[in-house]
């Protein structure tokens, strides 16, 4: 945090708009570049969570799957807090 951010916070002023612009651009470009619309992304998120939930117990509310972009490379980033792994996956069982 810079001195300016600190004073802004004290005075409850809005952060300077350049930072907001950068954050909004990064988000919208991640979507533009991947050609995934929010609906598809949401569907993918649900399916990923479903698959992961077969192996480990995850916090579905906390689970987050999003697109991040750096240097024109867009990555799918999943952040899935694990409560605990599901005890003894049934050997030979169907998945």
């Amino acid at each position, binding site marked *: 945090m810079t001195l*300016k951010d600190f004073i802004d916070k004290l005075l409850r002023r809005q952060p300077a708009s350049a930072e907001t612009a950068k954050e909004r651009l990064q988000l919208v470009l991640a979507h533009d*570049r991947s050609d995934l619309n929010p609906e598809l992304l949401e569907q993918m998120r649900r399916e990923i969570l479903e698959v992961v939930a077969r192996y480990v117990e995850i916090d579905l509310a906390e689970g987050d799957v999003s697109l991040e972009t750096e240097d024109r490379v867009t990555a799918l980033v999943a952040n899935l807090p694990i409560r605990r792994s599901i005890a003894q996956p049934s050997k030979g069982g169907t998945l």
Partner: protein
Amino acid sequence: MSTTRTILICSGKGGVGKTTTTANLGIALARQGAKTVVLDADFGLRNLDLLLGLENRIVYTAQEVLAETCRLEQALVKHKQEPNLALLPAGNPRMLEWLKPKDMQAIVALLERQFDYVLIDCPAGIEDGFKNAAAAAREAVVITTPEVAAVRDADRVIGLLNTKGVQPVQLVLNRVRPKMMSNQEMLSVDDVTDILALPLLGLVFEDEQVIVSTNRGEPLTLSDSSSPAAQAYGNIAQRLQGEDIPLMDPSQARRGLRARMRKLMQTRIF
């Protein structure tokens, strides 16, 4: 293979400075001794002739050259004060109905026989006009301003240029306002280059002289103007020619107490 540098000047978003850049770079390169032609590929809304002050000297256009009803030499409009520069004017807007990428390639191939630089003033958008112009280009300069919509559209264009194999693609950041940048109310130079991940060919400040010069039809680079935009375009031309010219620093444009105060405010405290 010719050694001509055929450069597309494009942006995606309209009105960010493609034509201004094409005119000023064209004159600057010509003044530096390079035989340069500027090609108006904005057939719908041609303006390059006006910015160069050549609007009354057009007889033939790219259209007649393509139809072979005139020779290329007849269509080229030579600049009086700067004879190293020629303009190939855009034809009738109805050309848009039939023009194909191979037509642009044919025109550019003719130009590449006699010029060192071919600068193509691209129309806004990413539709046919852009695609036709891009098909003829070897490299590109993408113009953007430090605004969200312009940067987003530039990103789209960069993606398309990458898939078409246009190389290198460099960035010009136009209409920079140092004061707004230092107040962090405008995307910084680093913000834009980080987001678009392109090498920066130059930055051009917001400059009233740009408007004055378009009123007169005399690009800033035609005279030894000391205005910031004139210098910026001169520098960009030199960098295109491979010279190592340092970039302008927007924060240096505003020194003094207020700038120091602002620096203090940017100090990290925790």
